[in-house]
């Protein structure tokens, strides 16, 4: 029998929680930060936590103090995301990986539309995002064209404990997925078979990703990190027909998931 190598390097894309710190009043920052962390403590205890400072560009409170506050609150940080290299020096003393990942054009434009302070233009060659002007004018929820790769086509049942991740692509679901399975796409997910597990679209942060399902009975749905769970039969109350899940900005600029019937279903009895 062929011997397996005991040490190998493999790529991965692990789910992590981002603690996002935005611009705002420096005095109330600490309180708000600690409050947020306290509310999410059970989640933070089990997941990888990453501090996202990309939306924090004000210079009055520097990255150093924020990291210290988060650590003092008992959060074990795995890395810090920054938008421009200027913050790198302030973080040098922590033995933390610092990842420079500029916000996409779309995020920047959206924030600008909401009256957010000026942001420097991110590089236009960000490969993970669709930066065409057309998509920037779209409302979130109207899916833009995919990244150009063919979708992953699921034809075998996705079982409990199994995960399908489509990097930079959409998924077309043509076989049922079970409770306890995970369907993850950087793009959108279109399901023609029952979805019973977790389903996460826009995993790479694409807020225009959507989930369209003919039979959605999911445990959890998420678009671009915004998620919601469902109690038993909660989805049935939607009529049990074809459903689309999209991400919208409400009047306060908060991201919300919206569930909408794709077509009015004439009957709830479908078997």
């Amino acid at each position, binding site marked *: 029998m062929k011997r397996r190598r005991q040490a190998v390097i493999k790529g991965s894309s692990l789910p992590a929680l981002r603690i996002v710190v935005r611009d705002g009043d420096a005095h109330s920052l600490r309180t708000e930060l600690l409050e947020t962390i306290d509310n999410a403590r059970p989640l933070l205890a089990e997941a990888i936590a990453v501090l996202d400072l990309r939306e924090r560009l004000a210079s009055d409170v520097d990255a150093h103090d924020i990291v210290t506050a988060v650590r003092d609150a008992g959060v074990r940080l795995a890395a810090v995301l920054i938008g421009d290299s200027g913050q790198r020096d302030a973080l040098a003393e922590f033995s933390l990986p610092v990842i420079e990942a500029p916000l996409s054009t779309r995020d920047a434009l959206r924030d600008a539309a909401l009256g957010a302070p000026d942001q420097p233009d991110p590089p236009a060659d960000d490969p993970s995002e669709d930066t065409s002007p057309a998509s920037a004018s779209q409302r979130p929820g109207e899916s833009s064209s995919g990244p150009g790769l063919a979708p992953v086509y699921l034809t075998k049942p996705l*079982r*409990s*404990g*199994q995960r399908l991740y489509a990097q930079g692509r959409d998924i077309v679901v043509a076989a049922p997925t*079970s*409770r*306890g399975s995970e369907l993850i796409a950087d793009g959108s997910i279109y399901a023609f078979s029952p979805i019973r597990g977790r389903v996460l679209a826009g995993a790479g942060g694409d807020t225009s990703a959507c989930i369209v399902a003919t039979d959605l009975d999911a445990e959890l749905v998420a678009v671009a990190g915004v998620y919601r769970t469902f109690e038993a039969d909660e989805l049935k109350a939607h009529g049990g027909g074809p459903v689309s899940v999209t991400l919208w900005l409400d009047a306060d600029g908060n991201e919300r998931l919206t569930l909408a019937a794709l077509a009015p279903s004439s009957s709830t009895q479908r078997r």
Partner: protein
Amino acid sequence: MTRVVVVTSGKGGVGKTTTSASFASGLAMRGKKTAVIDFDIGLRNLDLILGCERRVVYDFINVIQGDAKLSQALVRDKRNDNLSILAASQTKDKDALKEDGVKAVFDELRDMGFDYIVCDSPAGIETGALLALRFADEALVVTNPEVSAVRDADRMLGIIDSKSLRAEQGLEPVKEHLVITRYVPKRANKGEMLGHADVQELLNIPILGVIPESEVVLECSNQGTPVILANGSPAARAYDDMVARFLGEDRPLNFLNGESAPFWKRLFGG
């Protein structure tokens, strides 16, 4: 050609060993030379269910470790010459089970001309369960009409699809069959337990058998008789149907209608 069939479930207590014993006996009764192996090292049960515990001298681990020959360890069933039992070790550590050892035993069973090797898997998804399904050509996935058992069965189907040798080598996939045990039609009709159609929809594999809940099962276990030999009992007939279907016979699913649905109601689709 020898076919390896694993009887597995994920969850414990759903009736793997009961099903293994009846399935193996049923194959033997139909003239198939069958070996049934207990993979539950440290918690051996199959020999008790088949009533041969007093005749076990050597076990599976003894053979794997070279302490005994396979022919010495195989216990011939006293009711049917076609059936041989290889008991699990009650004393050895479960780490004694090794892939190459299992393969060597299977190869020898093939050489001895067995038609079927039935592997009675332990519960869980650890070494014993993984090795039981490793060389499988077909799988009987046993579940109860209950959500946690169904979820574990689903997990096990995923493991079969990824960890079996057939899956790893890209051969024709393991043929999967669904066996629902402890089924009470009356309660399923009332919605108190999952119906067989619900279970089948959730797991998406064909049903091989639905075994009704029966007091006979407990009695048979205590007496060391496979349920399939309990003449006249619905559970015995359901197991017999299951074996017949496995061998290609077309038999309707019986025992799915409880006494609660009167004849006229069924007739008029009530």
